[in-house]
């Protein structure tokens, strides 16, 4: 090890322990304080360019165009805003359900197969993490267009052509693909931790396989499902790129609506109120699931998912 090359340095530099009475402020304390100062530049950057803008937006939401809670009242009184919020909640719920229905069997399959296959399945599910969001969204635009591959495939089996680009179905299909990893990873983490002998035990006690699954396996997988569903829900609520490009302006979701408030109506107060509401819902959901699933595994799963969240 490289350490040994430094043995020639005079030992006096660190001082022999116990020989001198410790000074009032020990060198160690000074060093610790010095290390803490290393965080200052990054904290300054985060405070100036993240915290301050966020607080400014919060301020704008209660002062612009006029002081008061009018912008927040509009969230529940303005028909357009209410429609958008409800549509966004509905879309997010639908994407969450689709992701869950796809991710659960997929994660279960991952927990069944042997090492090499598991690695392959994991790699495939991580592809959305590993590829550019813009490139993927563009690909969905190409796939979903009226004479695109999906429609031609539907046509061959006699189901098409269906209008997909600019529709809820198209947006769901594209969004669910982007969100799938956030569901698969926490669910898989939980499933992997479930002792398979428990299912054997249920069978030996007379439970039919369906019952063993519903009464034993499913309840034990709940922490992962809760973590995954929250992540997907939260990410879907604030999702901007895919709904903007694959969906239609007439069916806009919350993020698009916020963008319109800012870019076209220059209504920072209204946009701020919407953003604050979105943020509060996000924090409540994330916090709630953290409380609900206080197990190590799911915490880690949530953490991993959140860490990947910024890629979306």
């Amino acid at each position, binding site marked *: 090890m490289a350490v040994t090359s430094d043995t020639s340095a005079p030992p006096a530099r660190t001082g022999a322990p116990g020989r001198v009475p410790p000074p009032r402020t020990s060198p160690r304390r000074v060093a610790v304080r010095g290390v803490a100062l*290393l965080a200052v530049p990054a904290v300054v950057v985060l405070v100036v360019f993240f915290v301050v803008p966020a607080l*400014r937006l919060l301020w704008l939401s209660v002062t612009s165009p006029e002081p008061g809670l009018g912008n927040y009242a509009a969230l529940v009184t303005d028909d357009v805003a209410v429609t958008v919020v409800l549509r966004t909640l509905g879309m997010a719920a639908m994407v969450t359900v689709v992701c869950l229905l796809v991710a659960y069997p997929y994660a279960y399959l991952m927990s069944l197969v042997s090492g090499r296959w598991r690695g392959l399945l994991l790699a495939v599910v991580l*592809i959305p993490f590993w590829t550019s969001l813009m490139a993927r969204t563009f690909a969905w635009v190409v796939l979903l267009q009226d004479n695109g591959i999906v429609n031609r495939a539907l046509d061959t089996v006699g189901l098409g052509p269906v209008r997909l680009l600019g529709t809820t179905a198209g947006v769901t299909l594209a969004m669910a693909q982007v969100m799938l990893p956030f569901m698969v990873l926490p669910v898989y983490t939980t499933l992997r931790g479930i002792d398979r002998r428990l299912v054997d035990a249920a069978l030996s006690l007379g439970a039919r396989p369906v019952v063993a699954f519903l009464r034993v396996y499913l309840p034990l997988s709940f922490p992962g499902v809760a973590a995954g569903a929250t992540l997907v829900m939260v990410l879907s609520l604030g999702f901007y790129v895919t709904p903007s490009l694959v969906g239609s302006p007439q069916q806009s979701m919350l993020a698009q609506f916020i963008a319109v408030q800012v870019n076209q109506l220059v209504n920072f107060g209204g946009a701020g109120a919407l953003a604050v509401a979105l*943020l509060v819902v996000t924090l409540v959901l994330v916090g709630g699931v953290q409380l609900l699933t206080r197990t190590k595994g799911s915490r880690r799963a949530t953490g991993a998912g959140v860490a990947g969240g910024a890629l979306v």
Partner: protein
Amino acid sequence: MRSARTLRRGLAVFGVLVGLWLVVPTLIVVPISFSGEDSFAFPPSSWSLRHYTTFFTESSWLTSLLVSLQLALIVTVVATVLGTMAAFALARTSFVGKGTVDGLFLAPLIVPGIVVAVAMYAAFLGWGLVGTPVGFVAAHSVLALPFVTVNVTAALAGFDRTLERAAAGLGASSFTTFRSVTFPLIRPGILAGALFAFVTSFDEVVVSLFIQSPNLQTLPVRMFNSVTNEVDPTIAAASTVVLVISTALLGLASISRRNRRHA
């Protein structure tokens, strides 16, 4: 038991379908980028490199690629240096309110992108930072910092501090200890954080859309505008280039992470 086998087989088929759903939309842009036509038809009826020629010669595309690359490099340096320093401070000290600071470093990951974008846009308008290089570097650094701190903190957590004490006990100064012991051991974590920082900036769309100006656009913004405003098949070539760059870097990052685990 026969039903168990049927279930497995069904699951396997399902897994293949899901795999296709995940992979095909990602890779479909590659053949389209080599199309000889001015449409997104698939499969293309003729092949050519013309979209790549356009991409690398037309100034609006080439400029945005260069902007994105330069921006990502600067952000990588800023975020890696600041993030690594901060990770040290957070891993090695405890002080009143440390929990808040920890949360501050994770917040950009949790707060929805649109909220960050609107907040920054409103602030940057007032500060005259919209459409400026400084504005872009600041915004992307905020988004990239968490990835560096998360990776370096993880590397430090898996790091045996007795090694440092041993080095100090052998007479090394703190700087020598850092250079010869600490840094080599957490280097994979720093490298992974740097790569994530690069990709975060290089792929960022939402915030960039808000703080862009006609004179300063990143490549993903240029692509976004291309999809919304025009039918320009050059975007297929752009997508392929972006795909190759970000996938290669994230692959490197994950290899680097794995090395750290074995270190």
